[in-house]
């Protein structure tokens, strides 16, 4: 009887939404306490912690997701609002249109190839190929693409976040190694390869780096959507 009651409670949006918010806030507090270690990003910790909690309480992912859906639905407006940073930096985009377009399209092609090729060569499951294909886009958009082409959004989300963590950790030293000093180029590279985290890192370098990182992130997401839809049949 008590167990049936718990199962009904689990289906309430109150349950999924509150578990998610509490897990995220707890992970953020832990992250601050530990001195912001880049590998233990709060999103990653919240996902794994919450996953463990579901396994422990015997809750199925489907019932959790059904009740956490209100949060998931906010991803839509978050994507639409990416038009705002694009508009804010419209003058840079227009002035350097050729440079930005060439860089983003090339970056997107390389990212997509590097995401899908290892999976194809190692003979991974087609579901895995479709979960890795959106990796180049920012998580908000990548989750949407993954749902659209039949990947596993959970795998996509984790892979994109791990990539972003690698990008912000390795990015600045790699730029020094390659002797790249143009903040705009560094910003574009960080935005294309490390998305939201890269944009945050780029704003720490300079305002210009941050602006170009935002442009790189949004245009790269659009390029990835286009490229993946064109290739969809062959994935």
């Amino acid at each position, binding site marked *: 009887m008590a167990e049936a009651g718990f199962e009904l409670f689990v289906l309430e949006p109150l349950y999924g939404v509150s578990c998610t918010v509490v897990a995220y806030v707890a992970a953020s507090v832990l992250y601050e306490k530990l001195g912001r270690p880049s590998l233990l990003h709060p999103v990653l910790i919240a996902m794994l912690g919450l996953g463990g909690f579901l396994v422990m309480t015997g809750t199925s992912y489907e019932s959790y997701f059904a009740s956490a859906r209100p949060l998931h639905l906010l991803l839509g407006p978050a994507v639409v609002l990416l038009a705002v940073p694009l508009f804010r930096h419209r003058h840079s985009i227009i002035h350097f249109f050729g440079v930005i377009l060439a860089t983003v399209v090339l970056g997107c092609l390389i990212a997509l190839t590097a995401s*899908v090729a290892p999976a194809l060569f190692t003979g991974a499951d087609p579901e895995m190929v479709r979960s890795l294909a959106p990796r180049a886009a920012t998580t908000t958009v990548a989750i949407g693409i993954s749902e659209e082409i039949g990947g596993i959004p959970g795998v996509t989300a984790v892979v994109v976040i791990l990539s972003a963590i690698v990008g912000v950790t390795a990015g600045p030293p790699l730029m020094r190694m390659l002797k790249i000093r143009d903040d705009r180029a560094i910003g574009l590279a960080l935005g294309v390869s490390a998305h939201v985290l890269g944009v945050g890192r780029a704003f720490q370098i300079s305002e210009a780096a941050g602006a170009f990182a935002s442009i790189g992130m949004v245009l790269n997401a659009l390029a990835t959507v286009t490229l993946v839809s064109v290739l969809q049949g062959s994935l």
Partner: protein
Amino acid sequence: MLRALSKILVFQACGAAIAAIAGLPVPGPVIGLGLLFVHLLQAGHVSQATSDLFDRLSRHIPLLFVPAGVGVVGRFDLVHSGALAIVLAVALGTLATLATTALVADLLFRAAREVESHG
């Protein structure tokens, strides 16, 4: 705030409708992003409310990934069998993308500067 949110939702709904009617394999919100951008370009400015909404929501975007991301826990079979593909895609993919985009952008920005100073 509510006015800005309703505007965003209308753009998203239009995007979703276009995707569904035209049978495009593109997420509706992405088309909504394009529509909003064109609208902002036509208007020539972004309203304070829309701007604030973006700034507020974008600070908490990572929270919105969590419900989808937890799904990885149920699919450890897939992650386990494709572990090599994941590691290669994440490590090599990210480093290769970083290096090429930075090098190409640096080169092109320099070329653009030279064209400008000679033109």
